[in-house]
């Protein structure tokens, strides 16, 4: 549908943040080509955010920023005693952790009123809607960096406090302990340290669960890319049994659980890179995600310049680093040591690289190529 420029202008005069403006803009959705799928936050599915208010937070005496202090379960134990004995004493002390707030913002979008007339799609409305998902992408990127830091910290502890490369060479030499990070079976037998992502096999998933289940915790949810998920569709009749194999061939894998645990799939392969599979406990054992201010949208017009911006104020933290484990399906090292100089393939891309586009229209690449004169 062609949208009269007059309508777009009208949207701005009525302020696009208003309900009326939104409804009008929605009528004209679908008249443009989308560049890529946009997905809501996977971090929010793993740690559901909790809304907090200023009253729940603590200030600093040194600066004007906020934290929320979270209590950690205190230690306790029981013991056997004789009829005459007495228990050992424990002076109770519970640990506390600070979860700090920060802001995630869209870009500050700017356009002159006159240039806006050149658009027949509700560009401002599209950007507004996409901004919410862009913000959630950054949430996911922060979350991924935090969980990666958590598994690497525990891995370092398990290796005597040293960062030891976890790659095919060291696994075969027996010189590294796999604790919070494990390699997939095919990566362990790769014969080379490389960035090739091997297919996900059923025993890999089981080993991942066992790495968490063996520590008085239980793996509850997996985080996996769509790319690695597709490997599950290749599992054989030995993995699935004939009934599931028949079903999967026709409908794909349609159950909510995989080997008894739930899963979160993501298409954001520039944030969660293929070959990385994480599993987590329930959020109660794991971390916190607080929202201080939900997404706010600001729009203003100074003379003929229109500007708008969206932002939110959140806090997220992995408080119990032992509540997350990682499976790597590639044979090279992904630790901070970067022993194989391939780490950039396994960690989230830079923040400013997330806005990359798929289409090549800017380079004139569309077919058939039509030239107007």
């Amino acid at each position, binding site marked *: 549908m062609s949208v009269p420029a007059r309508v777009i202008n009208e949207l701005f005069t009525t302020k696009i943040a208003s309900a009326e403006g939104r409804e009008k803009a929605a009528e004209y959705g679908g008249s443009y080509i989308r560049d890529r799928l946009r997905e809501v936050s996977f971090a929010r599915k793993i740690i559901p955010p909790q809304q907090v208010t200023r009253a729940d937070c603590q200030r600093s005496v040194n*600066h004007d*920023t*906020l934290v929320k202090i979270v209590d950690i379960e205190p230690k306790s134990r029981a013991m056997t005693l004789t009829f005459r004995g007495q228990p050992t004493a424990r002076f109770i002390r519970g640990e506390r952790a600070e*979860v*700090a*707030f920060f802001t995630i913002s869209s870009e500050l979008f700017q356009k002159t009123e006159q240039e806006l007339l050149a658009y027949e799609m509700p560009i401002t409305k599209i950007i507004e809607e996409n901004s919410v998902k862009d913000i959630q992408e950054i949430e996911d*990127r922060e979350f991924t*960096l935090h969980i990666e830091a958590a598994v690497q910290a525990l891995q370092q502890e398990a290796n005597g406090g040293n960062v030891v490369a976890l790659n095919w060479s060291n696994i075969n030499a027996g010189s590294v302990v796999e604790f919070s990070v494990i390699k997939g079976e095919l990566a362990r037998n790769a014969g080379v340290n490389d960035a090739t992502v091997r297919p996900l096999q059923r025993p890999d998933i089981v080993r991942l669960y066992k790495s968490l289940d063996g520590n008085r915790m239980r793996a509850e949810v997996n985080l996996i890319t769509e790319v690695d998920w597709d490997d599950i569709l290749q599992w054989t009749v030995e993995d699935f049994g004939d009934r599931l194999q028949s079903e999967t061939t026709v409908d794909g894998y349609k159950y909510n659980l995989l080997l008894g645990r739930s899963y979160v799939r993501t298409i954001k392969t520039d944030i969660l890179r293929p070959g990385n599979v994480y599993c987590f406990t329930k959020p109660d054992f794991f971390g916190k995600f607080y929202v201080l201010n939900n997404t706010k949208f600001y729009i203003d017009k100074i003379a003929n310049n229109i500007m708008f911006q969206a932002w939110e104020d959140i*806090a997220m933290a992995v408080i119990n680093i032992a509540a997350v484990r990682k499976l790597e399906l590639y044979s090279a090292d992904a630790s901070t040591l970067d022993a194989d100089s391939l780490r950039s393939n396994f960690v989230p891309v830079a*923040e400013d690289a997330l806005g990359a586009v798929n289409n090549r229209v800017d380079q004139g690449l569309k077919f058939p190529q039509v030239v107007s004169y």
Partner: protein
Amino acid sequence: MASTISKVNFELQSDLMATQRRDIPLADPNLSNPFNANYLVDGEWVTINDDYKLVRAADITQAAGTPAPKPGASNAMPLFAEKGRYDVQANAEKKTPCIYMGPFEADTRIYDDTLNGGITAVGQNLKVAVISINVSGTPKKFSGLIRRADNDTDPIVGVVTRLPAKNGGKLRFRKPINIG
């Protein structure tokens, strides 16, 4: 008169909206930790390295008075974050705000008015160099402001508008343009 470090060491005296702030990751994320030996304070002068990350403009392993090396010194800008801010520590890459572009006037405690001939008059030019300030009785080095003498070739990053002796110990300066 030697400067002192306080909780707030850098205060804008001009309109914040006339500046452009940028949050840029620290090259050494550990410097956001207020207990790190080399913690950063507001008003320290930083620059961006080849990886687009923040580093101190002047190398604090050098002696006091050592100017910020070129070409990074031309791009020096003040940190706009107090020591140990939660929002800096909260983000994974320790992105830290600095005043990236735009003219401003500010009061700073991150200066040494005794080096390089001393800051003695309004209108004198300023440059970035290693300075030493006593913190709890112990000398600590920062990347701060000193006088830029007329025959210096180091970039000018500001101009004195009020002397510390007449401004409660704080140096007021104006940064009219981004590149000195």
